[in-house]
């Protein structure tokens, strides 16, 4: 397959203000999303505790064809909580732009590199499959990004997530950046974009053309602010422009499944 879909409806999608899913809702949605043929489901953030942790555990226990991942900060406590849930993949995320490192974390680049290394090693030693998220990549220094990718790859991690956290990327520039990273580091890239200026699909497609093997999507594109890359629209564009079908069944089948999920989410759009 040219590109694999990582569905993040149950994590980034649910972060859309005003969305609150119960354990049962999340389990049902996970089943439907898996039936659509996605490679991986990012089920949530177990470190939130309570119902969130219970839902990730239950989803992991379903034994779905899709791999189940949990989102973590650079925290061994977060990672332990995810491992307790029995997920397939532990995703460790860190801001990588100077803006977010300084004003959000109140740290510096050295601290980020050290703590990414520390927590990645911790998770790998627990026999976890690890992916690393580079938040705000699109506003980060590209050389710093590449250094981090080199470090992460050397530790044994096979995939990083390039996140256009505030949706400011343009496709040609993104294509160029992904190419440069891939030219320097043979690590798989997972593209994660936001739709703040209506460029989520074009950016995800550009990243794919540059060699990204994974693309994050959500059902209906729901997510923070103007949302994420819309799953149905993206797979349709991939099929029409490349001939590759990356979903299960007919397109009408996945429209129907999207509608089932919208009913659970109580969405009327």
């Amino acid at each position, binding site marked *: 397959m040219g590109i694999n879909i990582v569905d993040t409806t149950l994590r980034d999608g649910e972060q859309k203000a*005003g969305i609150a899913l119960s354990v049962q809702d999340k389990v049902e949605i996970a089943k439907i999303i898996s039936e659509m043929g996605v490679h991986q489901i990012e089920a949530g953030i177990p470190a939130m505790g309570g119902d969130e942790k219970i839902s990730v555990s239950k989803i992991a226990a379903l034994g779905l064809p899709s791999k189940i991942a949990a989102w973590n900060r650079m925290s061994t406590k977060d990672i332990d909580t995810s491992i307790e849930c029995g997920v397939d993949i532990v995703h460790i995320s860190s801001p990588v732009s100077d803006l*977010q490192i300084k004003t959000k974390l109140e740290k510096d680049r050295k601290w980020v590199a050290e703590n990414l290394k520390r927590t990645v090693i911790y998770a790998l030693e627990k026999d976890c499959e690890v992916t690393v998220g580079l938040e705000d990549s699109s506003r980060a220094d590209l050389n710093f990004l590449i250094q981090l990718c080199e470090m992460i790859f050397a530790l044994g991690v096979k995939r990083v997530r390039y996140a256009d956290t*505030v949706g400011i990327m343009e496709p040609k520039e993104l294509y160029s950046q992904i190419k440069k990273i891939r030219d320097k580091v043979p690590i798989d890239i997972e593209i994660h974009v936001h739709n703040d200026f209506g*460029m989520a699909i*074009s950016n995800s497609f550009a990243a794919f053309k540059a060699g990204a093997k994974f693309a994050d999507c959500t059902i209906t594109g729901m997510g923070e*602010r*103007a949302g994420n890359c819309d799953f149905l629209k993206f797979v349709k*564009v991939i099929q029409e422009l490349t001939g590759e079908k990356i979903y299960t069944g007919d397109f009408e089948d996945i429209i129907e499944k999207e509608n089932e999920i919208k009913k659970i989410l109580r969405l009327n759009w």
Partner: protein
Amino acid sequence: MAVVMDGVKKNIIDRTIPNLVKKFQNFNNDDIAYFLKLLHETGIDLFEINRDSMDKIKKFPLNLDYIYRIENIEDYNYLNNYNFKYIILNYKTIYRFLLEDEKIQKNLKEHNIILEIDIEDLDELYLSEDNKIFCIFNIVCLRINNVSKLDFIDEDFRIKDLKSKFNVLVDFCASNKYYMATAIIINAFLNGSDIITTEFNSNDYAAMEEVIIALKSIRNIEIRGDLKLISKLTRIYEKITSERVYSMKPILGEDIFKYESGIHADGIAKNPKNYEPFNPELIGTNRKLYIGKHSGKAALVVKFKELNLNCNNIDMNLFLQDIREKSIQEKRNVLDNEIIEMYKEYNKSYQR
């Protein structure tokens, strides 16, 4: 002049009206006039209309510049309704007008023509040896139409080449068939296009609001218009169409500046730029903090301050737990009045 890049002024053509009249009926002239006025004040220079537009909207404001799209000979009869700045003729049908009577030909020749050509037909235009249409008509601009895909690799030499070969301005009009129209138009703008064509709240073309706010926020391009009017534009558009704009529509959607998740709330409190591509005040709106399942304690403290509630005597961890449970139970965020009620209950229990 709407947009200035490197000291060069470029124009924006709006083609909202032809699509509006295709989809809806019964327009209030005052609403349309107000809508166009706001678009103009936001930065739109030229308004494209067609015969259908003039049939359904009886009177267009006279202080704006219009472009008339002529598709059939019958459309010609409306040519003198307004003092059109440009006429759009399509490459595939322009020769039809050469066969018409001399009066029509003469009249058309007196106008500035935008020749609209699909990108697939550009090679034919290049290869055509006599190109007599450039001799017969006063073609001042080539509109490259139906561009639906973005080339990620090549340098965009073609725009400059077109300008020098045909001695014309270039306008780009993208198709949103593959959801790439906004990216295509921004790219064309940055690579020499003199004019770009957009539509407000568009699904079919590049969305005007996405393009101009992206140019402003991402590229720091000067937009000569009052972008704070975008919120008012959305309201009048909703009134004209009797439909709400999609709640997550980039730039216009009512949900796009609502936030709830603990990590985002914390990041925004420290510096809104952490999680906002532009300040909501740029477009005349503001951000709104929601409290719900994904809220953290810090956000709850902020909300308490906002509602003039005292954190003392409240176990905020327990309160947050209750907030999350209520949010899941209601399948939405917890409303301000509900937070106040919960707070009162907590205080009653404490006093017992």
